């Protein structure tokens, strides 16, 4: 499903450029539940953004669902994001002026789905994350855990092949963290490919494979620690 070959990423800040990803090789199969760990600044978010076609890499090859991601037209990239990928952000990124249901329905709007069908589906996914009774609430009327569950419902509503979550529980307490993880695992059970960036070993332990980033590279020593998933 996801294939990375020698991916490099630089950030330009003023005069100097930072080499953030220094040659990532990674293969994630369809239906896998993978976590990415690593210290702050190691490039986890950068990597996930590249996976989600939200950012571009500077060198190397990225294949998503058999398609090389390179120099995409923005329009094409938008279609890929919409059809293939569900992204869950650490900071939720809900639109503040739309209620929970409308936020969940938004990706379907960009699929040009009719309003009725959109709302029906959104309601269905809100129910899956246990928030049917909060459909009409605005984001600022929701708790952090509820917001993140809305965001997850929004990521899932288009039934994407790949779900990418950047520290989905980073802003949550242990109780809501457990709730969010339940939801994610539930969707994994339905056959989705899921990649979770996290700082918490607890969460990483709930995934099938842990990938450790160190200094822009995948730490192969750590990868060996989870041999059962490397097939």
């Amino acid at each position, binding site marked *: 499903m996801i294939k990375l070959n020698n991916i490099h990423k630089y950030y330009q800040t003023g005069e100097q450029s930072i080499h953030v990803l220094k040659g990532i090789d990674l293969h994630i199969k369809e239906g896998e539940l993978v976590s990415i760990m690593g210290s702050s600044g190691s490039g986890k978010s950068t990597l996930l953004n590249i996976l989600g076609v*939200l950012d*571009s890499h500077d060198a190397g090859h990225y294949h998503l669902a058999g398609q090389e991601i390179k120099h995409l037209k923005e329009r094409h990239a*938008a279609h890929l994001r919409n059809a293939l990928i569900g992204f869950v952000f650490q900071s939720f*990124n809900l639109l503040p*002026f739309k209620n929970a249901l409308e936020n969940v329905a938004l990706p379907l709007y*960009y*699929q040009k789905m009719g309003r009725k069908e959109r709302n029906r589906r959104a309601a269905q996914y809100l129910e899956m994350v246990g928030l049917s009774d909060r459909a009409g609430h605005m984001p600022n009327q929701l708790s952090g855990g509820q917001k993140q569950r809305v965001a997850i419902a929004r990521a899932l509503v*288009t039934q994407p092949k790949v779900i990418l979550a950047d520290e989905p529980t980073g802003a949550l307490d242990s109780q809501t963290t457990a709730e969010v993880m339940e939801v994610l695992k539930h969707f994994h059970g339905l056959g989705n490919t899921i990649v979770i960036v996290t700082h918490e070993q607890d969460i990483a332990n709930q995934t099938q494979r842990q990938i450790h980033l160190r200094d822009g590279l995948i730490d192969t020593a750590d990868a060996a620690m989870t041999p059962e998933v490397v097939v």
Partner: protein
Amino acid sequence: MIDGLQEILYTLKQNKLRTALTAFGVFWGIFMLIFLLGAGRGMQNGVIDSFADNALDTIIIWSGTTSVAHNGQGLGRRVSYTDDDIEAIRHHIDGVRFVTGANSMGQGTVVYGSKTGFFDVYGIDDTYFKIRDQVPIRAGRTIQILDQEQTRKVAVIGSAVRDRLFGHDGNPIGAMIRVNNINLTVVGVFHDRNNNGRDSERLFVPYSTFTKTFGRGNQVHVIWARPDANVDGKVLEENIIELLKKRHNVSPDDRRAIQSFNFAEPAKMVKGMFVAINALIWFVGLGTLTAGIVGISNIMIITVKERTREIGIRKALGATPFSIVSTLLMESILVTGFAGYMGLVVGVGIVELMAYGLEVSGAKMDFFQRPEVDFQVAVTALVLLVVVGTLAGLIPAIRAAKIAPVEAMRSDG
């Protein structure tokens, strides 16, 4: 489409203040332009009204007494024209479109049935009303060439004459009136606003009838003329006067014997004034409009900046650049279009109200009459504003749609 519209209306509602400010800028620009245009037109109409019903190239020549001795003739001699002078002008002077003489006998006794009035009686030929082609004919016709050739006993009467003899709503056409004991058939009614309408207290008969039937000879009291198109009315006036002076033995330096008035001069001045008024209106109006456009552009830039994060999120969820740009533009078009339209409606409404108020109150201001809106100009301004506003929004919108989603989402907003 409907869906997209709902999406747009929704975001507009969420940003009431911004929407209101943009809308007001546009509204005010259009409103001011229309108001100014309407007021300017009112001024023009007022000035034009002061010319009453005279074509703006009319030349009028009448006579006085000599004030300079010439060729052995003394002072104080009265100059009087005849229809030979008219013929001479017609034959010897180039650039004359129309020329005619009006003969007058002062007041005559006009009788219809049991009613009697005293009105000025004039003899004219068919050219007279061609020169005074702005004078409205209220009923019937004017003096025509056959009236002149066949010495018909007909009369064209002023509206004041009709009011007096037939009543305001009476129909005098075909009626027989008696003027100094001569029976005439009324064939037309005119209304002349000159002299505050007192020039309507007149009646005209064919020049030949006037000469023969009334026994008034072939005198001409006033010469009326109009130049050909492209002919300088001032030059024509001078040429005619020069000819008349020669024919009547008047010194070239005599200013009193032959007098004239040429509408071309005040008309030229007034035209210059109109140009100035219009220039001012357009200057102020376009200034306001430009301010409106700059306002829209600014607000579009701010809008896009404020919403960079939202745009990033939308893109991450699969919004195409096209949908981002078109949504932003539709917003701008909707707001400017609606506000501009309101400005148009209110502007036109107020100008019309002004016109109505002037008419109902009967207020007679010398330099302000019948304000009105040139609708084409108004609509052009509106379209211009919307188009430019849209173009102004296009640049920041396209830029915003190009930012990578991650970058856009990093912005605070």
